[in-house]
């Protein structure tokens, strides 16, 4: 498929049959690239990688949600059983008028909740009850809308379950249209449960039937409680509570802010009808941390965002939306951009990379040779090798394979060491290297971490660490290293184990400490004899020196050894990726592109378009000096420019005059002629159109303060 196909497809083609070649995502991806084969390969790489990442994150999110969902399900099951026991039990009879309600606190980012609720609804439908309805505030502006939604969905779902009886379905639909009240629901519920109880073999869900009791509850999920109209919600609850004896109703409130909103929204007379239980989900920052841990801090995926890119994504999360979903989407965009813009990203995959390396085209080999990191690598080689690398394609391909292997090894060692360093530094006071591992990761990506001042201060703090803290941290490091299979890490593990073993020899330590104590006292005795000031100073200096050198207990020596060892590991494995040849293959670094796409600035774009039309139109006539607008620019630009010179209120007539002058100059009229700057009908119309466009864009609006004036809505100007 070529690019012409995707261009040739028009949306307004009349017959749908002829439109057989709708462009796929792949076509868009390939569109405009010179080497189709290569881009197809890249597209496939990108797809498989993304699929894997998506699957992993979804799995992770399921796991994170599981705990809260499980407790919710348990709550709902328990409520069901109390309803079924009915009036036998004194306590539950006394509580019969409460509607069991789960308040689910999910954090401020509402769009992220959809997935959780979907998950909840699915699980409920699978194991507890088929009657689950979710409603959103936007659908329930008034009470009758809300009723209608609930009934529609409830009766609708059961209809789709019982599709053996089409005629009943039609009557149901008719009835529903006539009156949407809970009485209808009650009647419907009675017939449904009776049918289930009468023991007709239900074909569709036998597996569910066993678990589902005679009276499956009706669960209503309010997705965004805050946005509901309080009056509507109160009325709905009041109505529901009237039927609580006939209908096993149950509510789930999705709360974005805090549980006290329930009290703000519902007066006591209503909230006393509910038996509320609170469920709190994981905070979104923890959620993000685990996603980063799973997707970014792993050598499993060859694609890596650079420090800047990661920073853009994280800052959008922290500053703007708290949305994990948006973070993942941003990552997807980075992935797509990387594979789209970097031809050499064919090599960015796991197993096939080496195969792809041998199949590089000549053009791509040239690209490879031009990579800054590769050029640096070439410079480090001997002259003979340099010539080879610059002339022979085959040799380059061979070297490339080797370099790719090295890169993979680098990553395999990088992450475990990063984690070890994080474990050691995360408990230090004031967190010199960051509280979260992502902060440490970003600083490691940017430059040699050991050159940072923070690193030095962290090391200093580590040198003062107590024994048990240090050993437990080192033990955790050993745990991390155990799971890594590379040679270097194994060696490191061996060394670390040795050190830990030494820490664990208490006998030696104690004996040495005694010796150190004796040393300490002896110079003190000598001090008493001498009274000479000079002598005193000398001995004091000596004492200080000796204390520094001699009082090093074996533990301290060991501690220094351990830290030196860690330091050496850091220096050898945590070098920034820029130092690695061919790092461009795996790292996506254009953070500006990402920022522009994810954190759009519509107002800045409009202002750029108006004040500098050349930026978008690329017409040479419009090219102008800084801060000026060519008089050939579109009318709206001229009008905009003129309005910047005005104050808060703009006199329309003056504005028109000024506009006419500018436009006349553009028409090439003689400035001295009589009709220069004269307003004719055409100019008048153009001016009015431009002004109303400005009004539409929100720069001005009509005002009643003064006749023939409009007011500016923006401030500042030239």
């Amino acid at each position, binding site marked *: 498929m070529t690019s012409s196909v995707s261009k040739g497809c028009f949306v307004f083609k009349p017959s749908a049959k002829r439109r057989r070649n709708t462009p796929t995502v792949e076509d868009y991806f390939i569109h405009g690239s010179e080497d189709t084969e290569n881009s197809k390969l890249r597209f496939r790489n990108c797809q498989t990688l993304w699929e894997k990442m998506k699957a992993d994150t979804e799995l992770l999110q399921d796991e994170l949600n599981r705990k809260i969902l499980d407790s919710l399900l348990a709550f709902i099951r328990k409520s069901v059983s109390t309803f079924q026991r009915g009036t036998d039990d004194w306590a539950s009879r006394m509580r019969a008028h409460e509607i069991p309600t789960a308040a689910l606190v999910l954090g401020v980012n509402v769009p992220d909740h959809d997935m959780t609720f979907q998950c909840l609804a699915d699980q409920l439908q699978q194991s507890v009850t088929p009657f689950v309805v979710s409603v959103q505030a936007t659908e329930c502006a008034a009470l009758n809308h809300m009723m209608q939604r609930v009934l529609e969905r409830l009766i609708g779902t059961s209809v789709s379950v019982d599709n053996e009886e089409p005629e009943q379905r039609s009557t149901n639909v008719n009835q529903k249209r006539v009156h949407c009240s809970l009485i209808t629901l009650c009647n419907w519920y009675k017939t449904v449960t009776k049918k289930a109880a009468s023991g007709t073999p239900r074909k569709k869900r036998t597996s569910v039937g066993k678990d589902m009791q005679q009276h499956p509850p009706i669960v209503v999920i309010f997705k965004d409680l805050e946005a509901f109209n309080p009056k509507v919600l109160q009325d709905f609850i009041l109505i529901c509570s009237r039927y609580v004896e006939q209908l096993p109703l149950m509510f789930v409130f999705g709360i974005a802010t805090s549980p006290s909103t329930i009290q703000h929204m519902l007066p006591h007379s209503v909230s006393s009808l509910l038996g509320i239980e609170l469920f709190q989900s994981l905070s979104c920052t923890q959620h993000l941390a685990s996603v980063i841990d799973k997707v970014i801090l792993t050598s499993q995926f060859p694609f890596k965002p650079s420090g800047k890119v990661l920073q853009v994504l994280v800052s959008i999360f922290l500053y703007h*939306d708290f949305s994990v979903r948006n973070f993942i989407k941003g990552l997807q965009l980075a992935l797509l951009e990387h594979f789209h813009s970097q031809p050499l990203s064919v090599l960015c995959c796991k197993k096939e990379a080496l195969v792809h390396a041998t199949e590089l085209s000549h053009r791509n080999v040239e690209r490879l040779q031009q990579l800054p990191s590769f050029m640096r690598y070439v410079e480090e080689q001997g002259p003979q090798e340099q010539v080879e690398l610059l002339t022979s394609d085959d040799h380059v391909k061979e070297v490339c394979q080797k370099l790719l292997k090295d890169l993979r090894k680098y990553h395999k060692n990088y992450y475990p060491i990063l984690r070890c360093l994080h474990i050691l530094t995360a408990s230090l006071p004031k967190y010199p290297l960051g509280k979260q591992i992502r902060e440490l990761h970003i600083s490691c990506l940017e430059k040699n971490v050991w050159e940072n001042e923070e690193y030095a201060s962290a090391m200093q703090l580590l040198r003062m660490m107590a024994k048990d803290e240090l050993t437990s941290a080192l033990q955790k490091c050993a745990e991390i290293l155990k799971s890594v299979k590379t040679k270097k890490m194994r060696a490191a593990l061996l060394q670390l184990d040795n050190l830990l073993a030494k820490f664990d020899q208490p006998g030696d330590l104690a004996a040495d400490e005694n010796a150190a104590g004796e040393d300490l006292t002896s110079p003190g005795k000598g001090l008493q004899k001498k009274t000479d000031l000079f002598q005193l100073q000398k001995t004091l200096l000596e004492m200080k020196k000796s204390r520094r050198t001699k009082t090093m207990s074996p533990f301290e020596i060991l501690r220094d050894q351990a830290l030196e060892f860690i330091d050496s590991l850091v220096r050898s494995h945590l070098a920034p990726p820029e130092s690695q040849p061919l790092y461009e293959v795996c790292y996506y670094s254009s953070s500006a592109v990402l920022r522009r796409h994810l954190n759009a600035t519509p107002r800045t774009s409009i202002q750029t378009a108006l004040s500098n039309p050349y930026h978008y139109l690329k017409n040479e006539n419009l090219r102008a000096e800084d801060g000026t607008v060519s008089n050939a620019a579109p009318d709206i630009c001229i009008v905009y420019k003129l309005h910047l010179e005005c104050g808060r209120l703009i006199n329309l007539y003056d504005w028109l005059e000024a506009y006419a002058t500018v436009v006349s100059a553009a028409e090439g009229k003689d400035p001295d002629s009589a009709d220069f700057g004269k307003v004719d009908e055409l100019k008048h119309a153009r001016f009015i159109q431009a002004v109303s466009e400005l009004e539409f864009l929100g720069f001005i609006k009509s005002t009643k303060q003064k006749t023939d004036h409009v007011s500016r809505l923006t401030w500042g100007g030239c």
Partner: protein
Amino acid sequence: MAAQLQHLGYDDEKLQRVMERLPCRDVQARMLLALMGEPEQCSYPSIFIYGHRTTGKSHVIHTLLKELELPYATVSCVECVSVGLLFEQVLLSLFGSDSASLLSRSPSLSDFVRVYKQLCVQASAKQTRYIVLDRVELLRDMEANLLPAFLRLQELVDDNVTVIMLSEIVWDKFRPNTGCFEPLLLHFPDYSKGELQQILSEDSHPSYSPELYSAFINILLGVFYSVCRDLRELRHLAALNFSKFVEPLEQGKVKEGDTHKLWRNIEPYLKKAMQTVYLRELSSVQWEQQLQMEEKEAGAVRGLSAHAHVELPYYSKFLLIAAYLGSYNPARTDKRFFLKHHGKIKKTNFLKKHEKTSNHLLGPKPFPLDRLMAIFYSVVDSRVAPTASVFSQISSLVTLQLLIQVGHDDQLDAPKYKCAVSLDFILAISRTVSFDMVKYLYDFL
């Protein structure tokens, strides 16, 4: 007593049963029975019953009508989102399931009267029909002709029908200014302490003696009567705490007669319940769990209001702070807070008279978007690009009910907002971004 009621034409036994089920509402029930007369007799067109929540209005009416097997329809006006629904329910319960189909899709009052008459001819009843309208105050918000029409429905449909209205509001608040038929007024007074005791004692636990339960209720009322007289709430409290009350009995430490010891045992729990359960801060389930946990982990389960903390994105916090400042500072003082060289302004001379009262007492004032953004840019410490997500955060704050959008005209150009959070909340927020809120609030100058 029963002998007196005999002439009303009801079965003696039935009357006896009804009276048993209506403790402490003897007077009212008798009054109602007297008004209703014999089943065949024509009754008064409309009766208006009012009294506080849980004074037994609906209970008395329903028990009477149900036990005496009279034809009646009962409708809660909350449920009636449309008039049609109201008519439909009345017809359904008075004339059976087919009757509602006679109504048109969106029936008017005259449709209802017409259909009623029609059905009435077909099935003319010997007994008085009753229509009970619960929470009738909501009827006032519906069409204006509805309330007057129901008051004289008897005349309109030419049938032996009585409309009984129940409300928590006095009749004076109902009277339309065009005047209307005056219903008979009947007041249900609040239960006295003794009456509450009697009613609550009735739902005694099956496995314990009624005397014990009555003693428990006595203790409960001793603690709660001064703060709460709501029967439903008291019943809820009784149900929650009874298991704790009988715990020493279960363990065999105390005998049933030893009320003093039982009282000593339960009192601290009741005191605790007063703080949390009465406000429904905790669900009953959680309360029971907490009782089981004992003092070891007291405070482990916290009430709803304890979870007031909200996590917000960084800029949202500053937007909220800016909104708070916009809502509680007079606009003229912005210069003083946000310009570097503002000069000194004395509080007393500077302000108009009405501004001298604390703004926190007056509540939040609306402010335009421009002012919000201007304050936002001056309080946030770094340069912020005016990106789309900054603006979308404002609207998400609105959906979270932390900001309120006011006014509906001119939403595109100059929307106005109000800040809806409390001072404590904003102080907590500003502490997390280390912003000294108090320094910027005019009230604390």
